[in-house]
């Protein structure tokens, strides 16, 4: 029962729109003083948007509704306004400068001054005291780049303490941490609550952590507040009920009718392991195995931080991480991909998640982007066969219905959906045996999505094996034949699309039990 005196924060009827897209609609939450409050939801449910509204990243006026904090209605224009009142947000990507010391980072943007000079000695002294408070046993003069992610997280919290934090918001605080560091962090948050009365809001995917640490869980789905659970000794968290509320997104997209003709196995991964590029003790892919057959569309489901993109990138010519081990088989024969060229030569294609950063040369034309990965077939002695190049680019422009006046238009001038089609044209024109698509419909309107599903279906029908990484469960259920779930670097399940549903997949996406090796392959 929320007691009127106990409430530290209320967000009432919050609605936030980005252009035509409604990210939050009539969201209401109420947080009691001194509790650990957890926000739960799928990728893109609106959790981070909500915290950005609260902390002033989205200024007052850009959303509708009221924020009542400490009994006062607040209108934050910037993060500084909310920080002044003791609301501090720690983002998933830590905002630390690697080549500055711990003390300098703690006072970044907020230095202790003596006249016009920075008072280094005083900064070091205060830094040491807040570092003690969070249990960080390091020299304040140590460079951030020399400490691990777990300790960096503690630096962020220490920084928050110097701002007299009353309400601490942590976005996926344990996503990048190992079990031991996660445990320590959650204990620290509990201690800060008991000793200093600091209220915390934690956004997390890890249901077991929520069950252990939180007092209350609020579920958000598609920008709506769905339900909330109180957790205490008498009422432990009902994880199944929580999962049921998290999923069940409406099936807003249509999917083309498609019956796959599945042939023999084309690609198989066995015991794939890859380490974090900076933290070599962390396994990002931990003994991952899967396979995909000719004409088959296989999904890879998982929440942020599950390691799906990293696994795909490391397979595709070691473009992520260090010390990758494991075996890859193409049509039964073991292969090695020391670089991207080798992977492409074996008929691989990987359309990346972030097309602007990894997929396209935005300065170059549609035509040049289309031929970028296919020069071996398009040239003789290093001279490009321009007639063929133009014909192929034109073919895919009309087949994929890329909306542009000509193939000479720079890719940077196209809309997101059309850019994605150019990325697909680039890889499909190389006639791949195995095509890995990472979030192929992210940020694309519904109509273009449907067209992209059609392209994927056509490609599978031509005998290619397709692997789709997606955060949208309805999408995977709509277009895949088989779905693997991945969680914390581990493959937790493999399910045929017939006979599974969002709840079951979500249960495996939030679990951590590795599935048996022998059942992994179809």
């Amino acid at each position, binding site marked *: 029962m929320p007691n009127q005196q106990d409430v530290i924060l209320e967000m009432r009827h919050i609605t936030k729109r980005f252009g035509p897209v409604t990210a939050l609609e009539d969201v209401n939450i109420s947080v009691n003083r001194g509790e650990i409050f957890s926000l739960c939801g799928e990728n893109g449910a609106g959790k981070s948007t909500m915290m950005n509204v609260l902390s002033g990243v989205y200024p007052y006026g850009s959303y509708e509704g009221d924020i009542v904090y400490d009994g006062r209605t607040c209108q934050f224009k910037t993060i500084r306004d909310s920080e002044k009142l003791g609301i501090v947000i720690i983002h998933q990507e830590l905002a630390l400068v690697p080549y500055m010391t711990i003390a300098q980072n703690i006072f970044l943007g907020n230095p202790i001054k003596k006249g016009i000079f920075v008072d280094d000695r005083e900064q070091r002294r205060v830094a040491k005291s807040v570092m003690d408070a969070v249990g960080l046993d390091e020299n304040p003069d140590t460079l951030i780049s020399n400490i691990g992610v777990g300790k960096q997280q503690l630096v962020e919290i220490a920084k928050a303490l110097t701002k007299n934090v009353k309400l601490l918001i942590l976005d996926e605080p344990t996503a990048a941490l190992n079990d031991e560091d996660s445990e320590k962090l959650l204990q620290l948050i509990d201690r800060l609550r008991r000793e200093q009365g600091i209220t915390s809001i934690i956004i997390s995917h890890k249901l077991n952590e929520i069950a252990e640490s939180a007092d209350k869980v609020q579920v958000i789905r598609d920008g709506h507040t769905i339900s909330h659970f109180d957790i205490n000794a008498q009422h432990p968290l009902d994880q199944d009920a929580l999962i049921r509320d998290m999923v069940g997104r409406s099936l807003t997209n249509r999917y083309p009718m498609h019956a796959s003709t599945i042939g023999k196995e084309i690609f198989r991964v066995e015991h794939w392991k890859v380490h974090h590029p900076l933290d070599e003790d962390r396994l990002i892919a931990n003994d991952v195995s899967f396979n995909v057959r000719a004409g088959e569309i296989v999904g890879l489901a998982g929440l942020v931080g599950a390691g799906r993109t990293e696994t795909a990138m490391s397979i595709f010519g070691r473009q992520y991480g260090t010390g990758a081990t494991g075996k890859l088989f193409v049509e039964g024969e073991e292969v090695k991909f020391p670089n991207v060229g080798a992977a492409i030569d074996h008929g691989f294609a990987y359309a990346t998640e972030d097309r602007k950063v*990894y997929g*396209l040369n935005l*300065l170059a034309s549609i035509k040049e982007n289309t031929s970028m990965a296919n020069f071996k077939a398009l040239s003789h002695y290093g001279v490009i066969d321009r007639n063929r190049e133009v014909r192929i680019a034109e073919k895919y422009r009309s087949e994929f219905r890329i909306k542009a006046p000509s*193939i000479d238009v720079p890719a940077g001038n196209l809309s997101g959906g059309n850019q994605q089609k150019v990325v697909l044209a680039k890889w499909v024109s190389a006639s791949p045996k195995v095509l890995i698509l990472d979030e192929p419909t992210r940020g694309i309107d519904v109509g273009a999505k449907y067209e992209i599903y059609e392209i994927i279906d056509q490609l599978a029908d031509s005998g290619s094996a397709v692997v789709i990484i997606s955060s949208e469960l309805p999408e995977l259920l709509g277009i895949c034949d088989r779905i693997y779930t991945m969680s914390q670097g581990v493959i937790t399940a493999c399910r045929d699309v017939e006979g599974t549903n969002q709840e079951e997949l979500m249960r495996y996406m939030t679990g951590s039990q590795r599935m048996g090796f022998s059942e992994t392959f179809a």
Partner: protein
Amino acid sequence: MASAQAQEALKNSNDQVPKTASVKNLLLGNVRSYGIYLALVLVIIIFQILTGGRLLYPNNVVALFQQNAYVLIAAIGMLMIIIGTHIDLSVGSVVAFIGGVGAFAMKNWGMNWMVAILFMIVIGLLIGCWHGFWIAYVGVPAFVTTLGGMLIFRGLATVVAGESIPLQSEPFRAIAKDYLPNILGFWGPFDGLTIVVGVLAMALVIWMQIRKRSRAIKNGTLVEPTAWIALKCILAVLGIGFVTYLFATSGNANVGGIPIVLVIIGVLVAVYWFVLNRMVFGRDIYAVGGNRKAAVLSGIDTKMVDFKIFLNMGFLTAVAAIITLSRLASATASTGMEFEMDAIAACFIGGAAVAGGVGTIPGAMVGALIMGVLNQGLSIMGADAAIVKTIKGLVVIAAVAYDLVSKKKKG
């Protein structure tokens, strides 16, 4: 299937009427690329007036090319480096070093001039490998590597040519100052060979425009309107005709026509234009410069591309060194000061992007010519070298600023 139908429909429409672009769109869409040519014409007209018509005396035009050949040549290599998001600060020092070694070999070892040219080119390639190795395979930024190279090769040039080494080989000296022989004799006041080459060049331009059009119709891509093609052909014929007239009347009663350096420049421009526009290597350079991460993930060996563009720069720097040695007729340790800056400036004036990924050979060549005309015009007017430098500096900033402002306006 719906898409197949759409494709079929598109094909049919292609067969019937070629898609034509409007002249207005062409003009608006290419302001930047044509603007540079307009700027060159403008600069020429201004100095033609200011110098009382002396700028375009035939012999002054020949001198313009002979004196600026090194910029035109180095700018080709520098353009490829800038497109690939790098920079080369060592050109001037390397020119001095290679020139010194070449002159030394001819004087002290009695090396034949032709062997010496090959020798200088080999040294250029080795220096290119040296820079390429550090930049591509060790990851030392090009700015640092070539800054080091600038000091190293200036130092070595001083070791080799601390005392100036005279160039005695007459055929070697001819490269920078002589003309192609008048094998066709003089036709009145005109050199026959120049006229023939000029007419052939006009025919080539027209033939290429026609071929481009028929290719576009065949592939069903956007076709330029006939009036636009005609306009381009007329302007090109007028331009080539005027330059042909200038060269045909250059020299004196006995010699004249096409300077040898112009032939070298012409061949290099043609070859490198082909490499950048028609070859995989050229595409790779644009891809690496436009988005290195995407290039890696498309299977392009980006390290090899980096290595090759510096190897290539070594070759072109050697060519610039040969022409510079030939023109100055002696090698000194201080030869080639700020050559790299002239080449970089030419690229930026010619529309290359500081962030890489953008730039064309014609643009860089016109950029180099704009600077050459400024040089020539101001020196005919008797302006001080300090003033010339100041004005060149202002032009570079103005050109890049214009680029940025016009981009912002576009949206």
